[in-house]
């Protein structure tokens, strides 16, 4: 895996002196225009002289100039390790492509190429590929290429073809400058001559120099008196401290030495937390998340366990990512919302996702006019009603889905909405109840608005889904696809589904088998035409609603009249009531006979319209009488109408 750039290793934190000025200038030139000036750039220096700092500085500076630049930093060990892993996984080609596509490749510690023939070949191939594509490669080593044992001659030539440059040990002035810069960064103040005293020691390794400074800082933090140059020199490992007398005579200030070592150690560990926090800030900021919480760690000097805070922050980011993915799937327009970028406001992201889950609007609810109790139960519809009550008692339990099949006008819609209301009263969430025609219309609208996600979310949020006239989805492929997916989702989520169809499922044409078989997999009940008992109850209830004391003979007569649907019974009754009203008398059986048994009107000249478009009434089912136009205007009126 590629290591991240240390946020502290930037050009502006590098102290430039005579020893590293040339290397710094070359590095800066490379960062400003990667792939064009010195390619490859090879920097070598003894350990602790700032090679890695310089290398990472190039990465930071190049990224600052062009944030879209892809920069990879890795040590040779990581390079080798990932190569072996890729080869073991059979992903050798993918591994090569990964590096060939990098704009700026920074490889640290290439001296470890010694005796690694296969890695040398790989690096040679990579260097050639990057150079050809005008992409930059920068390498560092603790020795010049020619001194790397058993290094391929071709690689040496490639490196020489770019720029090979060394970083020497810092001189006295640079050492003083480094100590001053670092002391300033640590907000440590020293008396005159203290840092100079340390710089005068023959410490030519910057890392050791900083270690010495750590000791000074730590000592000063716990010391009551200002540090003297001689003491500083001793603490930094100067001659005064080296040969302290051993043996019987106790040392002069053993405790102070112990204290300074412990202090340096603690300071170093605490600083390592700081570095960790800074790296975390850089990482999460780079990924677009607000890092206020972890920034506060640096401000507050770690009043809380940073590891715990970082861990929690990462967990929160992961939660945000999950919410973001879910919300984006449900409602693509929410994908760019900043609410998914603030780990300190998970609640906001949760709320937004919840809104996406429920959709912008709740799904269409069942009509409140229809109640389950209004339905007249008789032998004919007993099975359907019992199934309906079982569904209300145990939603998604015994019968899921429930499919009600019956001819047009027998009361399927009434039953469906009544069931919807009953489920709605008991359910926790909204109940969706609509016709297949509305379902398709909504889908078309959602596609037009590029809002299919929220549209799906509306129905996915429903605690129960009731679809009237499911046969209307015939030949509508996209509607069937959506319904299929919704069906599976709701079924897996344990939600009740109820469908009605005017066409027996076995006769459904133009409906995919995968959907039809799923409907058949539930309970399919027939809702037959109303029998005499139902018609009788129905007429009685309707008349009672309008008349104080309905004529029992009228009830008997109307109940015995043939009618193939509830709606037809309504039509018969309405005709009798209209005639009674026109004549100004009470409706009676005699009047009803007179009205209903009058000679049949001429058959209509136009074909009878079915209730819903695209539906062919089943062969066995009679056309609904209420859909027949009984009273046609006379010829004169029609002519006048046409003239208009």
């Amino acid at each position: 895996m590629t290591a991240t750039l240390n946020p502290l290793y930037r050009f502006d934190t590098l102290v430039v002196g005579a020893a590293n000025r040339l290397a710094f200038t070359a590095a800066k030139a490379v960062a400003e225009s990667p792939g064009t000036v010195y390619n490859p750039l090879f920097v070598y220096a003894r350990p602790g002289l700032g090679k890695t700092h310089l290398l990472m500085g190039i990465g930071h500076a190049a990224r600052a100039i062009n944030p879209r630049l892809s920069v990879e930093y890795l040590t040779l060990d990581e390079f080798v390790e990932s190569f072996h892993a890729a080869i073991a996984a059979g992903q050798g080609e993918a591994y090569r492509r990964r590096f060939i596509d990098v704009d700026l490749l920074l490889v640290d510690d290439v001296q470890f190429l010694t005796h690694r023939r296969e890695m040398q070949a790989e690096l040679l191939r990579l260097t050639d590929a990057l150079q050809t594509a005008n992409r930059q490669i920068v390498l560092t080593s603790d020795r010049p290429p020619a001194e790397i044992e058993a290094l391929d001659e071709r690689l040496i030539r490639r490196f020489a073809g770019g720029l090979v440059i060394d970083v020497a040990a810092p001189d006295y002035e640079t050492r003083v400058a480094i100590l001053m810069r670092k002391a300033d960064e640590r907000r440590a103040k020293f008396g005159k001559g203290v840092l100079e005293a340390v710089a005068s020691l023959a410490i030519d390794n910057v890392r050791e120099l900083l270690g010495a400074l750590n000791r000074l800082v730590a000592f000063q933090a716990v010391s009551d008196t200002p540090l003297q140059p001689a003491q500083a020199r001793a603490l930094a490992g100067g001659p005064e401290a080296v040969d302290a007398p051993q043996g019987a005579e106790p040392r002069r200030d053993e405790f102070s030495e112990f204290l300074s070592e412990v202090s340096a150690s603690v300071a170093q560990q605490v600083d390592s937390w700081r570095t960790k926090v800074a790296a975390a800030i850089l990482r999460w900021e780079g990924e677009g998340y607000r890092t206020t919480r972890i920034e506060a760690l640096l401000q507050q000097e770690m009043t809380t366990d940073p590891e715990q805070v970082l861990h929690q922050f990462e967990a929160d980011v992961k939660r945000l990512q999950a919410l973001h993915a879910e919300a984006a799937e449900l409602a693509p327009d929410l994908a760019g919302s900043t609410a998914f970028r603030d780990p300190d406001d998970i609640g906001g992201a949760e709320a937004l996702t919840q809104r996406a889950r429920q959709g912008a609007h709740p799904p269409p609810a069942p009509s409140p006019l229809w109640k389950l109790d209004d339905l007249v139960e008789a032998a004919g519809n007993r099975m359907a009603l019992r199934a309906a009550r079982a569904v209300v008692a145990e939603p998604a339990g015994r019968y899921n889905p429930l499919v009600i099949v019956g001819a047009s006008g027998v009361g399927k819609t009434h039953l469906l909405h009544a069931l919807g209301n009953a489920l709605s009263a008991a359910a926790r969430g909204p109940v969706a109840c609509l016709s297949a025609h509305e379902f398709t219309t909504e889908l078309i609208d959602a596609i037009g608005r590029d809002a299919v996600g929220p549209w799906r979310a509306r129905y996915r949020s429903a605690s129960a889904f009731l679809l009237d006239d499911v046969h209307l989805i015939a030949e509508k492929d996209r509607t069937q696809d959506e319904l299929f997916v919704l069906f599976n989702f709701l079924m897996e989520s344990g939600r009740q589904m109820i469908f009605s169809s005017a066409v027996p499922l076995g006769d459904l044409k133009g409906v995919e088998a995968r959907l039809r078989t799923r409907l058949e997999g539930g309970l399919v009940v027939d809702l037959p035409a109303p029998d005499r008992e139902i018609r009788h109850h129905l007429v009685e209830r309707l008349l009672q609603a309008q008349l104080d004391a309905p004529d029992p003979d009228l009830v008997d007569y109307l109940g015995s009249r043939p009618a193939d649907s509830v709606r037809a019974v309504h039509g018969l009754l309405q005709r009798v009531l209209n005639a009674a009203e026109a004549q100004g008398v009470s409706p009676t059986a005699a009047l009803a006979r007179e009205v209903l048994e009058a000679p049949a009107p001429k058959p209509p000249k136009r074909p009878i319209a079915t209730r819903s478009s695209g539906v062919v009434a089943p062969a066995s089912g009679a056309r609904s009488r209420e859909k027949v136009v009984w009273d046609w205007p006379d010829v004169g009126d029609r002519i006048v109408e046409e003239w208009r």
Partner: protein
Amino acid sequence: MSLVNFTAREITCKIVYYGPGRSGKTTNLQYVYGRVPEARRGRMVSLATQTDRTLFFDFLPLDLGTISGFSTKFQLYTVPGQSYYNATRKLVLQGADGVVFVADSQARRFDDNLESLQNLQDNLLAQGVDIRQLPVVFQYNKQDLPRDLVLTQDEMDDALNFRAVQSFSADALHGTGVFETLKGVSELVLKKLATGTQVA
């Protein structure tokens, strides 16, 4: 015991000096006590018999002041070396952040050293602590005695230091190696800060 308390901004290290009886554990603490400025040391608690054998334990608290914003305290303990005080040793060992095993370099105490080291491992294991996970250093004391009476540092390492941890030769009575040992174990303990394994 937690090494770092971020809420209280406190670092507390408990270091236990372990080893066979009369190996010089209390002498180590006494030397440290003698070298610490009064302002930085607490009262050294020492429960000893009439013949100066540790009866219960020695305890030396050291306040190192505020380092990097953390109030840093070291607590040095010794255990009674005699084998019959094992219950006390277990008690003192609880929550130790680091252990200094003070071995007696005299050849005749070879078996006592081994027995005590085995006892340390057993007691740690009984507390669910794997000695390999705990910062431990060895101190080979009494190296000032005549050469023919004592084993050299290498010989002591061969005999006791199976995991090749840091070891120090010492003459606790005169202070040689005392602070080096303390520094060694402290460094190991504090290094654990970075790994976070003891961070509460």
